[in-house]
């Protein structure tokens, strides 16, 4: 029973989603995103291959390709060729 409890706790702990949007830059060069969260509009630079966590409670981003997308706050995003792929 102890083993089951342990397994359950482990499952719960590990399976908890990280609920801020995670952006990974898959491109060879740094990507600059314009993130609008709350009242502020800021630029977030993500180096090649880098990963950033942004906006836990919903925001808008503008990708290098010029597309604007809205994020709920729990997505995983990859930047491929300057445009965002939401998983």
């Amino acid at each position, binding site marked *: 029973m102890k083993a089951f409890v342990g397994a359950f706790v*482990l*499952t*719960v702990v590990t*399976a908890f*989603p990280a609920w801020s949007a995670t952006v990974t830059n898959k491109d060879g060069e740094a990507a600059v995103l314009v993130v609008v969260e709350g009242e502020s*509009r800021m630029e977030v630079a993500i180096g090649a291959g880098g990963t950033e966590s942004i906006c*836990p409670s919903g925001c*808008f981003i503008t990708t290098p390709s010029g597309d604007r997308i809205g994020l*709920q706050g729990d997505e995983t995003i990859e930047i491929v060729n300057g445009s965002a792929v939401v998983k």
Partner: protein
Amino acid sequence: MTSKLFATLLALWMVVAPVPVMAQQPATNVNPRHTEEVASPQAKPGEQLETARKNLARLTDLLTQAKDDDNRLAELKVEVDATAKQIIATSVATRPRLDEIKARLTELGDPPTEGTPPEAEVVTQERKRLLAERGEINALTGTAEDLSIQATKLSNGITATRRALFSNTLLKHTDINRTTVMDAIAAISVERETFMRTIGSWLTFAWSFKRLQLLSALFLSLCAALVLLAGTRRVFSPFIHREVLNEPGYITRLSVAFWSTMIPTMAMAAFATTSYFFLQVFNVLRPDIAPIVSVTLAVCVALLFVSTLSNAVLAPRQSAWRLVRVSDGSARLLVWSISAMAVVNGLDYLAGTISEVMGSPIVLTVFKSLIASIIIGLILMAMSLIKPIVPAGATLDSQGKPWPRAVWLLFVLTGATLIIAGLSGYVGLARFVATQIVMTGAILVTMYIGVLTGKAVAKQNALADTIVGRYLEKRFRMEQIGLDQAGLVAGLGIYALVILFFIPLILLQWGFQIADIQSWAYRIFTEIKIGGITISITGILAGILLFAAIYVVTRWFQRWLDGSVMARSRIDPGVRNSVKTGVGYLGLGLAGLMAISAAGLDLSNLALVAGALSLGVGFGLQNIVSNFVSGLILLVERPFKVGDWVVTGTTEGFVRRISVRATEIETFQRQTIMVPNSLFINASVGNWTHRNKLGRSDIPVTVGYDAVPRQVMDTLLQIAAAHPLVLKNPEPLAVFTTFGETTMTFELRVYLADIVNGNGVRNDLRLAIYERFREEGLGAPFPRDELEPEEPMPELALDAPAQQTAAAEAVGQPVVTEPVKRSGTQRRPRRVSVEAVGDRD
């Protein structure tokens, strides 16, 4: 059977499938028009954004109107936040279409550059169209972005306004001087006239036009009050009745104090709410009267609360029921002063509302509050003069001593602060502090009593000693354990009640609005953010509920399958048990998985952990996993079933339960041994009752050399043949096994249909052998003259080596211990233990 299983699982899935979806994505309902919008691109989101824009504009207007109304502001903030969420959801909903367009554009490729052959017209057209749509979506998202910023600004603005409002009301300064006082006094008479006129006109109006409604509203609310009063008295009488006892127990005193405060207050609150509700529904109230009525009712509830509470705690007339140790006289004085403060404070609020409704100058409200705070300050200072402390050993009706220095100072200082703050113009602050002293103090005291009651009730066996406990015991025949558990549940329930009820009350007292508390509660239940992790209590609760539900259904299914289906299909009990266990674990796993996904946990994260875990499994969990897998193999291979007589290693006994990690074996001494399953897989296992229960049982018999071997063997065979449980085929055997130094050893080998009976049969046979040999004078293992007279030597030394050795020691002569033969695999029960049982039994 399989199809039934499948059908049931399918049905189960259909029942539960919608639940995880609901629980997982609480936000899905915000963007339901996913598919439609592909058909009519961007019209819907555009409309939604337009609605949001209008909404925001409307909210901004409302905000300017409601700048001074904290309650309204709190509600507006909730609306603004909802709009902001809606805006984000709208733009999130456009994302799939944008992805589609991007994918399609990639498929189409870049437009042909100069020098390359031109592409088909259709392709160019499509690219154009897609690019246009992409632009449209981006424009829409841009709008959403702006709107979102606007909404956030608005929301933050509301928060700032509310903060300013709060500090303004608290720290607003009014000059108190001769002129203001004169103005106020002048305003009083005007207000009184207006008030009289308003009330009079309303009463006339109500009486002449709304007589029926007024009377029915009063009648209905009175009815409700009577029902509540009678009902609560009847139901809760054991809780609130104060018997004239000499020394009521601490719990009884606590719970009586708590409930005798809570129940009348609740009844009164219910009465106030219903009567206001009825008056409102029957349209009896006018807008100018409604606030006065509601404040009057609220003040009545608050007064009742404070006075019942102070009476409950201080019990001025029944000193035995007093919760705090103060003298009789001071208890009365304390109750008086607390009630007086509550009355003054309540009247202050009522007067304030009347002034507000009558449109009196603000200076009048300030003046009234000033007087109220001065009175309360004076009462507080007077309270410092009460002498309530009863020295240890003295009776409660004796003269008390003054307060301790610190308490005395606290009273004087608070009173002085109230008066000084009021006189120096900070009337709002003084009023706030006075209210907090009376109301928050009362609520905190009730909470404290409630928590103490919960703690006392939850103590072990505490409930059984109370009136309620005795009542439950008598009425429902509850056992001690049941009462104890009921006590625990009641204690936890009281905690929950205290927390859920009083914390919002205190927050309301401190100037928070219901809308705030609602949104907090909503947030607590839906998303608690810790760093990047969001935990949803509702999700987890839904998961737990789902788990419990599926688990119950599995158990039920398992029982049904076992009892109704497999019992009649004449399946081997081993298979039956395996299937039952398998179904049980399958259901458990299924329930776990569903619960986890219902709780909103992402199982894909587990893959990562599984990788990491495999290393851990290699080291730490190796045994557990090995046992687990062995358990599965046991279920499939079934080398033994429940009820079998098995021998493994040093363990021997009947299998009682085969579970996935270990198997439960009950030895003949009724000791339960958990044998890890891997032992059964890795080592050889003896099973006496594997295919059938047929088995051989041996009885060694030792006789002296003066006996005739053939006669002994014949006699043994006759004895065996006479026993009803000994099988005729294979027939019993009598074998001459050993020449000892002074004895010959024979062995009687009998076959039994059920080897489990071996013990009893062997016992019968030994008795019979002893009696027959004695009758026939067969065999005497030892020369008779060497026997000690007081300990008659048995003519037959039975096979137990211990017994033989004991006999040998008694005789003082070495006896050849009977060689106990063991086959290599120990495929026969060790007689020692069997006989030990037999001896004990």
